[in-house]
């Protein structure tokens, strides 16, 4: 059953439409991420849920009550800000207890709750320190505890990890998810980091230019992108120009070489198409029987640690990127050498040039 519902939300600033026709139903305890590039409207939508912005049209319903025009201090929604927004004049304990203090809860109750939350975020010894005495990661944990202290119905997180370094980001996001699961609180998380959204969320809302491109589980978003934007924004992607040879049998040419795809093609022979192919779908060598094979030369090799990314140049200056897992016995081809790469027929997603939606059923999993 829906706990937080946004219906036909639109937000305009003057003539600029920031969010358009936004619809979402989140169940109680669900972790939903808004994912998209800067300026796509994800933070504006979050701020409308928090009450800091009022929708131009549409409704926001929380647990059956319409909160669209309710002031932020009457919503019982917790929020974690990108810049932490801890009060610099208060200690960690005072920051965490602030929400309870303004609700005029008894001092012993506040003290108990603060201790409980500082244990939860593993900072019980920092109660009497000031924000400027903490690291960025610690400050963000305190901000999380503060947002949870008054037991909000919904937790909002606005790019909470973007100011932290990579290692802390990964450990803190796992911590956030663990705490969210433990408390079972409905959470909306805004990020432009696809890895963060995919690893944390029950469902991801991919947004672009104020509109929802796709709502789905991380698995669906990654493997079955509904639009060209989702396909290109989420994960790495090869966008290969192709020409239809025979739509019925799924035959196309890429870089002058014929391949076959299992996805449906709705275009006559000779039409220009675009293939979306994830680098991890492509293998070095000829692959098993029935694989598509392309011959080319190695353009460059990037060592990325756990994986090695190679770029293979085909005819007509078409470049195909592929990922290989790194292992000590891996023999990397030299740049400029000839090479054959392969991928399964059900690997590519077929998209007509200029179209927004893909054929939709390309199975890349």
């Amino acid at each position, binding site marked *: 059953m829906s706990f937080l519902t946004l219906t036909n939300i639109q937000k305009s600033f003057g003539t600029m439409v920031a969010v358009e026709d936004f619809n979402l139903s989140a169940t109680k305890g669900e972790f939903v991420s808004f994912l998209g590039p800067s300026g796509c409207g994800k933070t504006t939508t979050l701020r409308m849920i*928090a*009450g*800091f912005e009022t929708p131009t049209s549409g409704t926001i319903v929380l647990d059956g009550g319409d909160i669209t025009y309710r*002031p*932020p*201090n*009457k*919503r*019982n*929604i*917790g*929020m974690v*800000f990108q*810049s932490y*927004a*801890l*009060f*610099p*004049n208060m200690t960690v304990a005072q920051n965490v207890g*602030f*929400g309870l*203090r*303004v*609700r005029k809860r008894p001092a012993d109750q506040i003290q108990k709750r603060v201790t409980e939350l500082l244990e939860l975020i593993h900072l019980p010894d920092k109660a009497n320190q*000031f*924000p*400027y005495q903490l690291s960025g990661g610690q400050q963000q944990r305190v901000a999380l505890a*503060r*947002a949870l*202290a*008054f037991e909000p119905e919904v937790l909002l997180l606005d790019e909470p990890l973007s100011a932290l370094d990579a290692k802390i980001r990964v450990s803190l996001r796992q911590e956030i998810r663990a705490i969210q699961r433990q408390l079972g609180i409905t959470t909306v998380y805004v990020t432009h980091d696809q890895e963060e959204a995919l690893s944390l969320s029950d469902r991801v809302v991919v947004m672009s230019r104020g509109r929802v491109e796709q709502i789905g589980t991380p698995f669906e978003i990654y493997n079955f992108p509904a639009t060209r934007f989702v396909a290109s924004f989420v994960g790495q992607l090869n966008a290969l120009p192709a020409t239809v040879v025979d739509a019925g049998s799924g035959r196309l040419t890429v870089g002058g070489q014929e391949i076959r795809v299992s996805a449906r093609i709705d275009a006559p022979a000779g039409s220009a198409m675009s293939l979306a192919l994830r680098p991890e779908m492509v293998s070095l060598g000829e692959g098993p029987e029935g694989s598509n094979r392309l011959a080319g030369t190695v353009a460059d090799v990037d060592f990325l640690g756990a994986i090695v990314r190679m770029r293979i140049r085909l005819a007509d200056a078409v470049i195909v990127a592929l990922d290989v897992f790194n292992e000590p016995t891996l023999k990397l081809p030299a740049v400029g050498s000839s090479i054959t790469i392969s991928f399964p027929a059900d690997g590519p997603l077929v998209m007509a040039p200029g179209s927004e939606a893909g054929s939709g059923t390309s199975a890349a999993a």
Partner: protein
Amino acid sequence: MSQTSTPARRRPTFSWLGVVPFLLFTIAFLILPIFFLVVGSFQDSQGNPTLQNYLDLTTEQPATAYKNSIQLSLITAVIGGIFGFLIAVAVILGRLPRAIRSAVMTFSGVASNFAGVPLALAFVFTVGQLGLVTKLLADVFGYHLWRDDFFGGSFSLYSMLGLVLVYLYFQFPLMVLIVAPAIDGLRKEWREAAENMGASSFQYWRHVALPILLPSLLGSMILLFGNAFGAQATAYQLTSGTINIVPLVISAQIRGDVLHNPNLGYALAMGMVLIMAVVILIYGLLQRRSERWLRA
């Protein structure tokens, strides 16, 4: 292969020469005068060492001068400080058009430096006995500013009340200028975070904004105190030295009148230097605290 290394010779730099004029100026117009002030304050008129000048500070005239100066500075610092703070809050956080903010800041920049003879004359021409506003009030409203009851007494521009009024003219704009960056430093997220946790606007100001601004507010008021304490030309032009405040007493002692005693003047000035040093020290400490918070 072994490597021999010779320490790299540092190229001489002459960029420090740029600071020489400043140092010379400081030595000539700050360090040396203070040195002579200290020495002179411990000498009698014949140049013999004495503590009498400092003992004389407790006599009626210098003591009253300090009392009056502290009173005048305190009143104008508190009133100017609160008034200036409220104006700055209205202009910065009041969602007023940008043009109004620019206009107020420009006015504050000009008015805070508009002290001394021109300011005193400006007030004489407006609210003096024959001033424009005085005449206007009398002719149009029949209210005689200098004769009728004004806050429980008759008004005089050449009294302590008059000085307070005139000093406020440059005190509150100075407050606007000093406190504006601190108010600008209040982050929008603090207000939003407070609201998000259920705080009303009053609770936000009481628990968050005012405590954050407090060091800046107190620091600014202390600076205002120092500004009023050291003002001489405005008071002299307005009262011709009839009001007993420290800067006027010092100038009377040093310039020479019936009481002429430059060494007592030096001791008075030393007291003033001490008060100003304490003011600057407290301002610096409060400012450091505020900056640490606003930076965090």
